[in-house]
């Protein structure tokens, strides 16, 4: 069905689109929020380990740093669509199925966690080493330094990292359609691309733009409030 501008003024057109868009927005947000949280649960400690084990830092350990760094680089170099397929058996053993929104979260997390580790690493490296030495001179333990110096001092930068990660994950969720994950990206491909529904494509893109803009402003505002 070709797109007619006059359609924009018909109520049935909008309710039609809303019916398709609303669940897709829900699926996207579900995947993004859960994946981001899980990716941080895994990636944040990894990022901290990368920093503190680096040479000249509080617990230098070249072996740990190099092994972890290599593993992260391998996971980050695999294209997401390949991970999505390669991890199907793992996903099935973890969540019982390899199809659907929840199943899509597994490869999303596997792909995002190493990214998070690198983002966290670069945020923590911004903390001047002198501040860490000052804490050492007061007799702080490595754990106290991580908890009371590294993470709080990098707070603003870490929040910007969350924003970047979340927005990247939104992009990845578009591919979740390949395993029946649903969401806005899937909708855009299924209806907008495969069925030539330009109207749905346009609305989907607009909704995505609004979500991304909203997240970015939220992140920027938080950072401004937290910066002293």
């Amino acid at each position: 069905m070709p797109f007619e501008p006059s359609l924009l003024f018909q109520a049935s057109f909008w309710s039609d689109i809303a019916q398709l868009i609303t669940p897709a927005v829900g699926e996207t947000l579900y995947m993004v929020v859960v994946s981001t949280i899980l990716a941080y649960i895994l990636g944040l400690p990894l990022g901290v380990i990368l920093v503190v084990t680096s040479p000249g830092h509080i617990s230098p350990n070249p072996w740990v740093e190099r092994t972890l760094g290599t593993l992260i680089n391998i996971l980050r170099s695999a294209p997401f669509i390949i991970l999505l397929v390669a991890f199907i058996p793992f996903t099935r053993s973890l969540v019982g199925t390899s199809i659907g929104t929840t199943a899509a979260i597994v490869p999303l997390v596997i792909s995002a966690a190493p990214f998070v580790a690198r983002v966290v690493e670069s945020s923590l490296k911004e903390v001047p080493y002198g501040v860490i030495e000052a804490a050492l001179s007061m007799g702080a333990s490595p754990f106290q330094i991580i908890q009371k110096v590294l993470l709080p001092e990098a707070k603003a930068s870490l929040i910007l990292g969350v924003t970047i990660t979340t927005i990247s994950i939104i992009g990845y969720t578009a591919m979740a359609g390949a395993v029946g994950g649903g969401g806005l990206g899937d909708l855009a491909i299924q209806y907008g691309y495969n069925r030539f529904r330009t109207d749905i494509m346009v609305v989907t893109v607009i909704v995505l733009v609004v979500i991304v803009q909203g997240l970015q402003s939220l992140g920027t505002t938080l950072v401004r409030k937290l910066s002293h």
Partner: protein
Amino acid sequence: MIQIQNLVKTYSSRQGDVIAIDDVSLRIPKNSIFGIIGLSGAGKSTLVRCLNLLEKPTSGQIIIADQDLTKLSGKALRLARQKIGMIFQHFYLLQSRTVTENIAFPLEIAGLSKQEISRRVDELLHLVGLEDKAHAYPSQLSGGQKQRVGIARALATKPQILLCDEATSALDPQTTLSILNLLRDINQKLGLTMIIITHEMKVVKEICTDVAVLHEARIVENGPVESVFIHPQSEIAQQFISSVFSHELPLDLLKEIATHQNSEIVRIQFLGSRTSDPIMTDLLRTCNVGANILYGNIDHIRSTLFGTLTLELQGNLEQLQQAHDYLSSRELNVEVIQRAL
């Protein structure tokens, strides 16, 4: 008392080993304000950082309160560090914490209760005069205020030792003086031992009781400040001293006086109560010499007055000798700069 014995610190680099500290031994008396002065790259920062093991010495011992620090690690080292405060050139405050929270930081690390922390922080804010900035963030403070927070933070756990690594080098002269005065007050009030690393002789002159001169990784001179100022042995110490007390006479003047007959130029230095003695009058009355004042200055080393008088003395050999005898009988330090007989 702090005892540093045969301390060596080397770094390995591609060009081979670099010796940052070369067999340094020092005794730092209790309650002293001990200055360690040197040019950049002399190794003074490395030396002070070895004292709380921020740098691990390659060999040697650091003995504080009968305990060899270099043997400690892990929790024992952390506990020992809580008894050694440190302040830095660039302050290194936590930007995400207020003044109060920054001062509370070492107390949190030491595991004090909330009430104890809040009581101690109030005392410290009062000590450094920052009560009105209690809830400000470091970015809202001036350099001098930041260093005051640094000092309060370093003193929070009631250490017996305070290490100051170029603590005033990032501050303007006015603020430097106010921070030095604060450090002197704290030294007197709390009776702790301070080790002050600096490249500025004026810092040593203002507050130090003792000084060690570090040059090319070695201690070249060390002793009570007054004696190092009056009898500097090494060339580097002389250079440092001339940066605060410049007694140099213009070259043209020296040349002109060199043409005089039976004359010599002497520099007389005197300390403390001697500064108020009428030595000029006595000299001229007692000895039959002429005297021409070329330069005179009175200043202080710490709280001791320190005067310098450069004279051209005129007379024959015998008369000049008489003048020297008189001056040394008054326990004045006399140095002949030029003699033309």
